[in-house]
């Protein structure tokens, strides 16, 4: 209804206004406005040209008065763009012949479509460049030695990333153990009791947690765990678990809400107790969705560096002691990427390659699961 009003309010006769002057070339109007700004608008319409020139003069006066600053510069750019749009529309309105006008509008539509397609596909370029470069740099580094040895001392060749690999796996496994049960259960609560006050506030908190910057989570865990007990792998895991929970909760909730209510009703009418209905009927039915949420959340947190900076710290040696600092892949990439040694850069490229492969495989795996079970997240 609203949109219908809006459409009717659009001055549909705007395009049929016939100016007294003769027909003008749209291309020329566009180019003139692009190059000369407000002065170029005069070609398309005198009135528009006068208005835009006055606005521009006012802006110039302000710049002269207050000196050039960012705000006025931005306004100047916006005014320029408005000039171009004005000139374009005014010139378009001067086309009198119906056939030519339709032709023009069709061309406009095709041009717009190709522009959109161009922009949409250009975005994939950076990703492809990054992927190819990381693979090119990383593949050369990876071999058995690389995967099974700890990094060589600074300035020496060789060494590997065994400590980071093991550390990352341990930290992520521990955070999964914490986050998955909590996430699934509270996701079940949210989907089972959508109207209650607790569900409302809990959902709000999940939204908030999802938006908390990762560095803030690191600070919090520093005070909760690191200050009393010292730097440890456990603290890193808890930080990552906090980042992981909202994703698991939301995916569980979304999946369970998609299941037909008759499923639950059928089970309940057979006299099955509530907890068994949830655990034996509802959760298995939504298993694919929940699983893909879990895998996605793991893919998300395995690359998180910021929460580990002040919690799991880093460790140059292979260690499986979860009460001590532990190295992880992203943290290793960060330290070695910013170090001055070329050998360490090589290690970092290799580590990036491994991390990237992990993340990509997890993502592709999720895609396959959701496709097979045909569940939309």
């Amino acid at each position, binding site marked *: 209804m609203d*949109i*219908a009003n809006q*459409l009717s309010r659009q001055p549909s006769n705007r395009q049929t206004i016939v100016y007294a002057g003769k027909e003008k070339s749209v291309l020329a109007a566009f180019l003139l406005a692009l190059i000369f700004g407000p002065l170029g608008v005069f070609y398309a319409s005198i009135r528009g040209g006068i208005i835009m020139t006055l606005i521009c003069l006012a802006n110039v006066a302000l710049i002269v008065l207050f000196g050039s600053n960012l705000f006025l510069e931005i306004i100047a750019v916006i005014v320029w763009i408005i000039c171009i749009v004005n000139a374009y529309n005014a010139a378009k309105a001067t086309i009198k012949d119906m056939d030519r006008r339709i032709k023009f509008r*069709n061309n406009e*539509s095709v041009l*717009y*479509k190709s522009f959109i*397609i*161009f*922009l*949409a596909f*250009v*975005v*994939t370029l*950076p*990703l492809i460049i*990054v992927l190819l*470069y*990381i693979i090119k740099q990383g593949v050369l580094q990876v071999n058995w030695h690389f995967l099974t040895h700890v990094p060589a001392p600074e300035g020496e060749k060789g060494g590997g990333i065994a400590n980071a690999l093991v550390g990352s796996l341990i930290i992520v496994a521990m955070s999964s153990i914490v986050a998955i049960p909590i996430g699934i*259960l*509270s996701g079940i*609560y949210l989907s*089972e009791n959508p109207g209650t006050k607790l*569900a409302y506030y*809990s959902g709000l*908190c*999940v*939204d*908030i*947690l999802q*938006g*908390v*910057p*990762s*560095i*803030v*989570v690191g600070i919090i865990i520093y*005070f909760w765990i690191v200050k009393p007990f010292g730097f440890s792998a456990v603290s890193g895991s808890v930080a990552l678990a906090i980042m992981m929970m909202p994703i698991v*909760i939301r995916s569980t909730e979304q999946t369970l809400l998609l299941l037909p209510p008759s499923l639950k009703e059928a089970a309940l009418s057979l006299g099955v*107790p*509530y*907890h068994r209905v949830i655990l034996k009927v509802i959760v298995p039915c939504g298993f694919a969705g929940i699983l893909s949420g879990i895998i996605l959340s793991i893919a*998300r947190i395995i*690359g*998180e*560096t*910021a929460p580990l*900076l*002040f919690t799991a710290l880093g460790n140059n040696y292979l260690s499986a002691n979860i009460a001590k600092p532990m190295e992880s892949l*992203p943290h290793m*990439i*960060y330290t070695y*990427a*910013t170090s001055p040694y070329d050998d360490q850069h090589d290690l*970092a490229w290799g580590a990036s390659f491994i*991390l*990237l492969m992990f*993340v*990509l495989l997890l*993502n592709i795996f999720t895609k396959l699961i959701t496709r097979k079970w045909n569940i939309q997240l």
Partner: protein
Amino acid sequence: MLKNKRLDLSYSQMKWETIFRRILVIMSIIMLILVAGIFITLVVQSMPSIKTLGIGYLWGKVWDPVNNVYGAYPFLVGTLLTSFTALIISVPFSYAISIYLGEYNPKGWLSNLLKNTIELIAAVPSIIYGFWALFILVPVVRTFEIKIGVAPYGVGVCSASLVLAVMIIPYAASLGTSLIRMVPSPLKEGAYALGATRFEVIRRVVLPYTRSGLFAGILLSLGRALGETMAVTVLIGNTSAIAHTFKEVFFGPGNTMASVIANEFQEADHTMYFSALIELGLVLFFVTVIINLIGKRIITKYTNN
């Protein structure tokens, strides 16, 4: 009295049922406790700096831990500048992707391929973007800076916002795609029936209808950009001094709130320094939370209608 075994069974099941319900409630309460805990910890730990520095902290222009002078202005400027530059660069692209996947080509292998590729952009860890950009993008930016005649730092706000722009495109794009697909087809068909071209349908029907939703997507992207830490920390150059002209600020090194925390948190050696850093975290937390909540509110309002 007759002993009913079935009743016994159902009693024990009743017990399990209440326990199960309680566990569910407790798990949800954990979320509330977490958020409240985060907020309280941040406020308590930044108390010393809030008390001494007051609200003037936010526009103090000097950050000098050695002399115990703290002002967040350089970081606020750095954060806002990188985020908004990234946002301005990313908006045309995310709009284009939304329109292409939502309107021009909603089905088929090509659209699936593009959709999955865009999702992969969000999946690549930010530290990898930072590492790649440090070795590939920064030299490119440096040559560009030499050409236009500013100090060739390479690292700085410009490089950081370029990488940030790529990283935040998927958030607005995926939301926009699903919203544009939800535009009721009678509206579009009506416009086509009146003789509108495809461009005019998108311009006058689809975009006005989805305006608030697309805006929410941009807000979510902005929330991401503000909180993004690692890629920015690697690329921003890390100086707390603030340059005078806009050109120097934009092409020179700077600092964002997240990057200054990442860099200086472990060096902080006295209480004031520490709590000043945590106050930065508090500000960051507030801003991102508010932006995210507004975005989510708009989306729920939009999808419910």
